């Protein structure tokens, strides 16, 4: 099956066809609710990448999605499905808020390092219980991580409305603002010549996300541990036979995954909001699933897919503003369709494309027109549900 088609088709052509299908169905939904999908697409792209203002938000969202996408990807390599990104990122935000509120950092760089560490530890801790339950008790990690999302949400409401609430914040549950000293340099501070406005949310965490992507690549493909994680993901019995401990791999993969989700808070809580608010994650944990699936769990793919979803998020906000008939939840629909087509219906595209490549390859080699055997070696490949 692996040599049925060239590698570029596997990593580029199929995701692009999947994405095109998802966007097409989204367009049909937009048309069905009585709006013009082409107009919506124009506003979306223009709003996301048509100005420095748009780019600032697009890359800010992309930064969040790089973290959560990498997180889901690392877990995927160990064949773990981490849907708990929302909760882990929320806890990461708590870690950032605690370390920045209760310690006086003389300079933002020290604060940044502390926030990265705290967010990673808190995110990893929130992933640790589901991971341990999966490894030792066989509890289904998908259900436990979803439950931990609900529990995290209740916990954050409690902490923000009862414990960390600043008096006189106007009733909205949020912490005090972080000190001015730990304000992260924004894109405006770093590169004002690029035309970013003073209020752009894009900040130095973008580079942290890039480093995280590099780190994940090194971990998965250049270390012994990464090899073990991938081996475990390919075949648990084989890994077991090779002396790899499933508990160790599940724990490590999920802790790294939770830590990466938590680090999202460095961008969203420390970089943008500069205080901890209710629902600081805003669905980014879930977007990570679509990003990891589209990016084929590879850091480069994750970067590209995160950029795509950054465009969708920022552009989607503009569309909602310009066309009131299309609500923000349209992004969730697109996200769902991307997950559906790239993740669950992958074979629907893969089977015909594979057959196409096989028939093209076969032509010069086997000139006989009547070949009784099946071309793909898979008799069901041509079956398509009506």
């Amino acid at each position: 099956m692996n040599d049925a088609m060239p590698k570029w088709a596997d990593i580029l052509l199929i995701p692009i066809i999947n994405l095109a299908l998802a966007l097409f169905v989204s367009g049909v939904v937009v048309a069905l609710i009585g709006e013009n999908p082409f107009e919506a697409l124009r506003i979306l792209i223009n709003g996301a990448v048509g100005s420095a203002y748009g780019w600032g938000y697009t890359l800010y969202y992309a930064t969040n999605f790089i973290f959560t996408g990498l997180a889901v990807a690392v877990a995927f390599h160990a064949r773990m499905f981490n849907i708990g990104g929302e909760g882990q990122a929320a806890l990461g935000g708590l870690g950032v808020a605690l370390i920045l509120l209760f310690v006086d950092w003389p300079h933002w760089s020290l604060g940044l390092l502390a926030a990265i560490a705290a967010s990673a530890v808190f995110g990893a801790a929130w992933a640790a219980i589901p991971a341990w339950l999966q490894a030792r008790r066989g509890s289904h990690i998908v259900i436990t991580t979803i439950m931990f999302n609900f529990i995290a949400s209740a916990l954050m409401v409690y902490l923000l409305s009862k414990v960390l609430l600043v008096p006189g914040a106007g009733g909205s549950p949020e912490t005090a603002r972080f000190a001015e000293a730990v304000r992260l340099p924004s894109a405006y501070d770093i590169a004002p010549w690029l035309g970013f406005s003073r209020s752009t949310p894009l900040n130095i965490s973008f580079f942290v996300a890039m480093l995280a992507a590099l780190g994940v690549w090194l971990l998965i493909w250049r270390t012994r541990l990464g090899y073990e994680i991938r081996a475990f993901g390919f075949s648990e019995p084989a890994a077991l036979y090779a002396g790899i401990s499933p508990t160790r791999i599940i724990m490590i993969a999920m802790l790294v995954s939770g830590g990466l989700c938590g680090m999202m808070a460095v961008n969203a809580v420390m970089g943008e909001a500069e205080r901890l608010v209710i629902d600081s994650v805003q669905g980014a944990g879930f977007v990570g699933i679509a990003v990891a699936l589209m990016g084929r769990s590879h850091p480069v793919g994750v970067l590209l897919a995160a950029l795509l979803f950054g465009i969708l998020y920022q552009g989607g906000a503009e569309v909602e503003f310009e066309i009131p008939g299309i609500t923000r939840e349209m992004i969730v629909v697109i996200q769902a369709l991307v997950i559906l087509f790239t993740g669950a219906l992958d074979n629907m595209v893969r089977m015909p494309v594979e057959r196409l490549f096989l028939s093209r390859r076969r032509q010069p080699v086997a000139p006989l027109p009547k070949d009784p055997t099946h071309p793909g070696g898979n008799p069901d490949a041509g079956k398509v549900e009506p």
Partner: protein
Amino acid sequence: MDLLTLLQLFDSSLRLSTPLLLACLAGLFSERAGIFDIGLEGKMLASAFMSAAIASYTGSVWIGLLAGIGASLVLALVHGVASITFRGNQLISGVAINFLASGLTVVIGEAWFALGGRTPQLEGASRFHELMLPLADPLRGIPLLGPIYSDVISGHTIIVYLSLAMVPLSWWVLFRTRFGLRLRAVGENPAAVDTAGVSVVGLRYAAVLICGVLCGIAGAYLATALSAGFVKEMSAGRGFIALAALIFAKWRPWHAMGACLLFGFLEAFGNRYQSLELFGADVPVQLMQALPYILVVLILAGLGGKAIPPRAGGEPYVKER
């Protein structure tokens, strides 16, 4: 806690466990046939929206119920196509369906009603109403048993009784009919069923569609009986709780009823005692709300003993390796 409070608590437990029970039985059929379904949540949500929307358009709750079942069936079919025909990952398909329902219900709801993702308030014939069972009033005077009959057992919507009747029916279908035997076999050893000349694909589609119908009824109950209209994200994790109940029940119908009643009781308890004082300290309301989710984790952690899922669960069936 006096008797009256306790009776009210049981009454509300039964009310709240109904959607869980229907979703749990839905999952039972699907998983017994070897198709994992974490999309119960999405199917319920889609049905809740569609039933409320159509009931408010037509003024008939029964047409609404049918529309809700229809919406749920469409998503069930998507899950079937992805996981049976195209042998995709069943977990990913379920997640996609949950997101799809969560997004589409608001997008379409906003386009149809422009009420911020809600549907108009349902009243009159566009809702399910409580039924008084025969002799509920005259029997009330009998000590203990009278109030139990007339206050706890009587006075629910028809769907509550339907869901309770579904328990023995599911048991009978799964364990006493040829179809049920084959359906269970397809979840344990599909190759054997195939060898016997029975269609694995057909059986699995049948299971997925039954699951769709039951989720549809559960969703319609949420929007047209438990509440009077659709609210964004109103399924609130019930699909996942139903899955946990299914595992707790070890994929058996009667045990599923017990597990769902337990979760219903927990929710009723949390609703009633929003502020609870325990050992002199206030228990935060958020803890009470998170209680069912925490119990799910405890159950999955093995509180109920080891649960062994159907052996071929989650694996697509490939004829001729």
